[in-house]
């Protein structure tokens, strides 16, 4: 297969899409967030425990393409244990990585391989909404929950 595709679906994404570590339900949670793309039908329910401004635990359920699935897994991986400010800056970083209009190269933003894998979305603008589906929704909710951390 051609290189463009390979770079989009490199092992990170195909692996993370199949990774079941964060798939499931939490017994109890403080926040539940639904990330839904009405145009393609991808839909995830994120359950989160936030304690003292810190994301203690995350799980998700739902269905979607391998890009949205992998990005939701990586979201859980990266944000577990972060405080509100770290969550928001982590999200902002991710959004910049997938944004084809961003001024910085993805490599200037992060060295993390798993995050960098999503930079290929810059080449496929129509798949950007898959890559940032869960991140965008989480950002929206966090900005409402913690307006004092939000810069918007």
């Amino acid at each position, binding site marked *: 297969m051609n290189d463009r595709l390979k770079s989009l679906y490199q092992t990170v994404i195909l692996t993370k899409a199949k990774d079941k570590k964060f798939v499931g339900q939490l017994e109890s949670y403080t926040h539940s967030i639904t990330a839904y793309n009405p145009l393609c039908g991808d839909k995830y329910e994120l359950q989160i425990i936030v304690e003292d401004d810190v994301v203690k635990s995350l799980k998700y359920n739902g269905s979607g393409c*391998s890009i949205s699935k992998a990005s939701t897994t990586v979201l859980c991986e990266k944000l577990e244990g972060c405080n509100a400010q770290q969550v928001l800056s982590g999200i902002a970083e991710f959004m910049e990585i997938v944004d084809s209009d961003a001024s910085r190269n993805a490599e200037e933003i992060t060295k993390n391989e798993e995050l960098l894998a999503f930079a290929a979305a810059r080449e496929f603008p129509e798949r950007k909404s898959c890559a940032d589906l869960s991140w965008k929704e989480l950002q929206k909710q966090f900005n409402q929950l913690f307006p004092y951390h939000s810069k918007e």
Partner: protein
Amino acid sequence: MNIKSIKSEFPIFRQKTPAGTDLIYLDSASSTQKPQSVIDSITEFYSSHYANTGRASYWPATESTRQVEQVRKNVQQFIGAKSETEVVFTSGTTDSINKLANSIFNSDLWKGRQIIVSEMEHHANLVPWQIEAERHGLNLVAIPLLDSGELDLVAYKELLEKPTALVAITAISNVLGTINDVNKICRLAKAVGAITFVDAAQLAPYAGVNVEYLCCDFLSFSGHKLYGPTGIGVLYGKQDLLNQLPPFAFGGGMITEVDIEGSSFRDSPFRHEAGTLNIAGIIGLGAAIDFVEEVGFETIQSHEDELTIDLLNRLADIEGLKILGEQDRRGPLISFTIDGLHPHDLSTYLNESGICVRAGHHCAQPLMKKYQIPASTRVSFGVYNDMNDVEQFIKALKGAYEFFL
């Protein structure tokens, strides 16, 4: 026009895709490509006799008005209407249905009756009725689907036992491909005095339309799915019904008399055509109808059927692939799902080989929910497709299996 060489009538196929491949366009159910004759008709119109219509007494307005009214007559013949006054130009199927739904329930007479749609409707033939049902106190009910992907006509007959205002049904499902027995559905509706509307968006480009045979009161289709321009569609309605309906919109050209205090309106079709029409769109629609009639619907159908049957056969062998619907009569489209391979990933993969298929819910969420799937992949055919397209598609599909699974 020979169906074997018809692709050459469509300029878009003359170029390579950005991936460097030929364009293999398998999404005609969403919108069809345009033949040179349709494109030329628009260029020629704007270059040679463009003017607003509506009886200005100068050339080129006289010529543009004449051409628009000529297309109206051609549409009349194309759909087998009794009079050209039964042909209202709209901007598409969605526009037609919204205007009809918005105008038709204009008294309290309808309260408590039901509107019957089906579980396989496109959102365009569902949500407008839903909204108006709520606004005017009607009940919206849906004819259920059999497991085969066909409508449950026994259940439909039971539904009809309650007072029914209107039955709105698609002639061909844009997801399952099911060809409904519209004639029977409309006759049953007529028997209980219900008004009938047929969504012919998918039927028109495949088999043409005959409103007399379909036995409906209203019907609609879109130009852009019939090899014609965007922004133009038709609403057919029986003459007396169209004349009784309050105007769909208000403005220039549809008026008899206006005072600040009140206004009166012309008869159909002008009554329902407010403002400047999509004149070039109408001209292009005329050229599109000429095109399909020149090819001939017998040719179109048998050509597309051949491709559909071939693809069905080839898909049957593929592991983990499930085709939606197993009905006998099917239009030129097939939707399917693959275990573990999401439609969007497949579509992105196929795009790298220049192959265009649709992934998603196809604007038919109730149907997707019925099948308990969030999305499917759809392949649909137009006159320009050929066996090579099917072959390339199958080859790429197998590549996707290797890549993703």
